[in-house]
């Protein structure tokens, strides 16, 4: 099983390495008739979003049981994109109320998380057409969690950082209505205006997976000013585990250049660390406003 996972990991790494390399090389060969943007002229959006969804996690250090619950999140991002390249930087803050009630032993765990994400993608010409645009590249994502489960006494508060360098592939389809149409449904007749819309699917796969977790519960030194130092004393960095993510985005652009984006995010990671694994999966539906700043 371990060998299988390593093999899969290597194949994925090579797959994404090839895609990134190919996309870089192919970029120069793309259709020269397309509008060329510079960094300054490339369309840019500020994104403000809010999401809700479901989260489950399991920390084998304290419990073999899954804690499940609802989450709410806020999203702030900056997106620059054209047909050839895309850069996204965002900050995501999340809170979740989870619980486990197996065998009528109701226990609650609060879960807070902040995340920084950056990706840069380049078009793969050979996988792109007028309607489909395939981009690939790399992302770095750093997630810091704080979890509180009062049932665990001195182990009630746990925190960790999960940082991943990920291979990214994104397929977008332009589903804009380029000419006015008339819709007829029984006796209803409606004139459909020209609309710019896009649908995309993005897959992120962790290539380098780091986690910074406490190996053992911390020992307090008696110095209240150094409590953070004490807290971090037994943290250790490990490179193991995996992370996967997929995003589906539907963007509807408004006549003024702004847009509304409806998204579904799925994020999952496993961070074994030095001792026992921490695992998390979340599903989020998010609505975002895209403000065109160019």
């Amino acid at each position, binding site marked *: 099983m371990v060998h299988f996972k390593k093999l899969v990991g290597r194949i994925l790494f090579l797959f994404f390495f090839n895609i990134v390399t190919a996309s870089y090389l192919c970029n120069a060969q793309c259709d020269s008739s397309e509008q060329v943007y510079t960094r300054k002229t490339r369309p840019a959006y500020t994104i403000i979003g809010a999401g809700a969804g479901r989260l*489950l996690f*399991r920390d084998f*250090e*304290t*419990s*073999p*049981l*899954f804690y499940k619950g609802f989450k709410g999140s806020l999203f702030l991002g900056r997106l620059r994109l054209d047909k050839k390249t895309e850069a996204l930087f965002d900050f995501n803050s999340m809170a979740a109320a989870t619980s*486990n*009630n*197996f*065998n*009528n*032993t109701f*226990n609650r765990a609060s879960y807070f998380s902040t995340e920084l994400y950056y990706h840069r993608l380049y078009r793969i010409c050979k996988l792109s057409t007028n309607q489909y645009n395939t981009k690939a590249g790399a992302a770095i994502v750093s997630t810091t969690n704080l979890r509180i489960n009062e*049932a*665990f*006494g*001195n*182990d*009630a508060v746990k925190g960790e950082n999960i940082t991943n360098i990920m291979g990214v592939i994104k*397929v977008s389809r332009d589903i804009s209505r380029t000419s006015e149409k008339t819709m007829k449904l029984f006796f209803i007749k409606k004139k459909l205006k020209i609309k710019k819309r896009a649908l995309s*699917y993005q*897959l992120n796969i962790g290539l380098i997976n780091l986690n910074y977790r406490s*190996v*053992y*519960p911390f*020992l*307090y*030194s*008696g*110095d*209240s000013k150094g*409590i953070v130092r004490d807290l971090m*004393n*037994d943290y250790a960095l490990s490179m193991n585990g*995996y992370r*996967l993510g*997929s995003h*589906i985005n539907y963007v509807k652009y408004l006549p003024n250049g702004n847009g509304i984006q409806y998204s*579904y995010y*799925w994020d*999952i990671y*496993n961070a074994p660390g030095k001792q026992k694994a921490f*695992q998390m*999966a979340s*599903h989020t539906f998010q609505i975002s406003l895209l403000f065109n700043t160019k």
Partner: protein
Amino acid sequence: MLLLAGICAFTSCEKIVFKKDKASKDVYTNFDYLWNEVDQKYAYFEIKQVNWDEIKIRYRAQLYADMSDDSLFNVLGNMLKELKDDHTNLYSPFNVSVYQVDLKHPQNYDSRIVREFYLNPGITITGGFTHNFIANKQVGYIRYESFMNDIKDDELDYVLNKYADTKGLILDLRSNGGGTLTNVSKLLGRFVNEKTIVLYNRIRDGKGRNDFGDYKPFYAIPSENIKYLKPVMVLIDRGSYSATNDFSLATKALANLVLVGDTTGGGGGLPNGGQLPNGWTYRFSISQSADLNKNNFAEEGVPADIPAQLNLQDRTHDAIIERAVLELL
């Protein structure tokens, strides 16, 4: 690949990726889980000379497949009691297992006697501290019920300022079952003039039952607020447990703090929590406390510098307070 990822995205792929849910009510699964957790993390097997392997054989034999939750609780709870440790508990929705070390020894604190004949009249309650002058206002008596009661600087300033002109203080920590170590350091900081190592802690960090990390010092750091540097008699008994045990151990390194009463109950280790596959939770000690010579005797209790016992026949005097007053005057 995209299709596969898409299917994953909409069908809770974590069910495929994560190992299956470990939730289980099976008695053997839960017994083995608890036994292994203790085996891999408990810090006092050697000091307490506990034969954990023999205990497993003895208690596992008491299991049967369709036993009730209540019966399983009794087996697991009794197994944990073999550790003779009040930091070791099993929590279920219907019961909590406790060892109760203080009941294995004579009672040395009676709150009625203290309140009636020492704190009244004129009892003052400031945050977690109950206090008053005693012995013709020559001594300040301060009762601190629990280290769970958060110590606020201004409250402690008020208390220590009130007794600034006394010949000494009595700090009564009998039947104080412990609490948070931050309160220990807040209190210690009022009785020292310089940063002092007062004890060491080390954590079990390996699967071997005697695998520990390095000793890490615990300091008494002088407070920037009001301090009391005259003699302080710290009253202890078998009910002085956990954080109170640590405070008592720390006094061994400080000349102006003297322990009076019975040996403490122990509990120097840090109790850490966890959950069984059936949802019940547990805790047990995963670290050791040691004195400046790195002796681990404290788990069996910190002995008093001046031993004293309560005479329960005398309902008007607290012999331990009287012994402390005698020492101060």
